[in-house]
């Protein structure tokens, strides 16, 4: 409950934030804090410096573009769940954001924080991979773009390197249909397993909670049978924990993939 000593800075611009992060290898960016502050309470993480991103204007806001949406990294789940632009361009994002945790956490937790923590039980990583999002990462040498599929590298590990920041996420406009399904610990609780799907001619299903990073499964069609077969062929090796033995997660992966694909299929039709 009680944090170790830490320093705090509240930059007013992206450049300032980047230079603070670059100056101290043990600095951590503080977004909504709904994960980071908790791991600091447990003293699992003990950064020397917190760089609070709440006053960095470049990281805020949801914009409609020619191709779809631009989400600032500091967009909160509540904003994502409510924004008209999101409901217009890619409603699955709003639907999923509204299921994350609870009101208080949604008010404070951010899209950037969710993907950068890359806890395998998080909701957004599989969704963003399924919808073909692109992540913008700023560093000393400017901004580079990374497809969501290549963004997630391991448990709590992403393509955002030392001294870098995720600034925003672009999400293409929906062409076909999307879906999401999960089994959670209690209503809207932590995911035991989840799956996101996007159907637009081809069928892309992305499984969460079954590996360190989202697992992409391409299925020949969005039919239940085809999807289940594709998942079975993915030879998943999911982790076991108190909430789910590996065997159960494997079962859920197939079931949830089929359900997410069904939703996407029906939406596309």
């Amino acid at each position, binding site marked *: *409950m*009680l*944090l*170790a*000593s*830490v*320093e*705090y*800075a*509240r*930059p*007013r611009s992206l450049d*300032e934030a980047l230079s*603070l992060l670059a100056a*101290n290898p043990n600095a951590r960016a503080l977004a909504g*804090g*709904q994960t980071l*502050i*908790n791991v*600091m*309470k*447990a003293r699992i993480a003990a950064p020397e*410096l*917190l760089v*609070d991103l*709440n006053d960095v204007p470049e990281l805020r806001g949801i914009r409609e573009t020619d191709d779809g949406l631009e989400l600032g990294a500091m967009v909160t789940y509540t904003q994502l769940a409510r924004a008209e632009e999101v409901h217009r361009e890619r409603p699955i994002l709003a639907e999923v954001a509204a299921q994350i*945790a*609870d*009101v*208080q*956490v949604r*008010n*404070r937790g951010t899209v950037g924080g969710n993907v950068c923590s890359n806890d395998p039980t998080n909701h957004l990583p599989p969704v963003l991979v399924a919808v073909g999002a692109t992540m913008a990462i700023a560093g000393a040498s400017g901004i580079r773009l990374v497809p969501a599929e290549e963004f997630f590298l391991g448990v709590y590990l992403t393509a955002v390197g030392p001294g870098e920041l995720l600034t925003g996420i672009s999400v293409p406009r929906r062409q076909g249909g999307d879906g999401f399904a999960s089994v959670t610990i209690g*209503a*809207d609780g932590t995911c035991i397993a989840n799956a996101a799907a996007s159907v637009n001619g081809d069928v892309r299903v992305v499984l969460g909670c079954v590996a360190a990073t989202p697992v992409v499964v391409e299925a020949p069609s969005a039919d239940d049978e085809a999807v289940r077969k594709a998942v079975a062929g993915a030879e998943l090796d999911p982790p076991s924990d108190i909430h789910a033995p590996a065997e159960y997660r494997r079962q859920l992966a197939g079931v949830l993939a089929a359900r997410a694909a069904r939703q996407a299929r029906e939406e596309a039709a």
Partner: protein
Amino acid sequence: MSEPVAQKTISVEVNGTTYEREVEARRLLVHFLRDDLDLTGTHVGCDTGNCGACSVIVDGTLLKSCMMLAIQADGASIETVEGLGADGELNPLQQAFGEHHALQCGYCTPGMLMSAKALLDENPEPTEGEIRRAIQGNICRCTGYVNIVEAIAAAAEAGR
């Protein structure tokens, strides 16, 4: 340029009163309220951000004060349970919680009231489902939520 600091004197308005205190950067907002300002109505029920007993409203946003640093609240305006009533009068939510027996031990109540207030501020006519979603981040171990949901519905009714 924003310089890193390990402590800082912050100015925070709570329930209309402005306080200035020096805080360590690591101090959680909930401990600032409880220990430094002696506003002990805001409670702590967990250490993982799950229980919601510490819920307060910061600049109009409902949040859990155990997942925000006090230093982040510099310049903010905060509402806590102590500010709900005026001059010793109970507000309609507080009144309804009593009438509907929506509290037993009363430990979750302050956070629950803040979540309910945030709901009704935004949605004066919530459905039962909306009420349940609005208090999902607040754990109560005594009531099973039955009477809490009823009380919030009654307060909404009374406020119309």
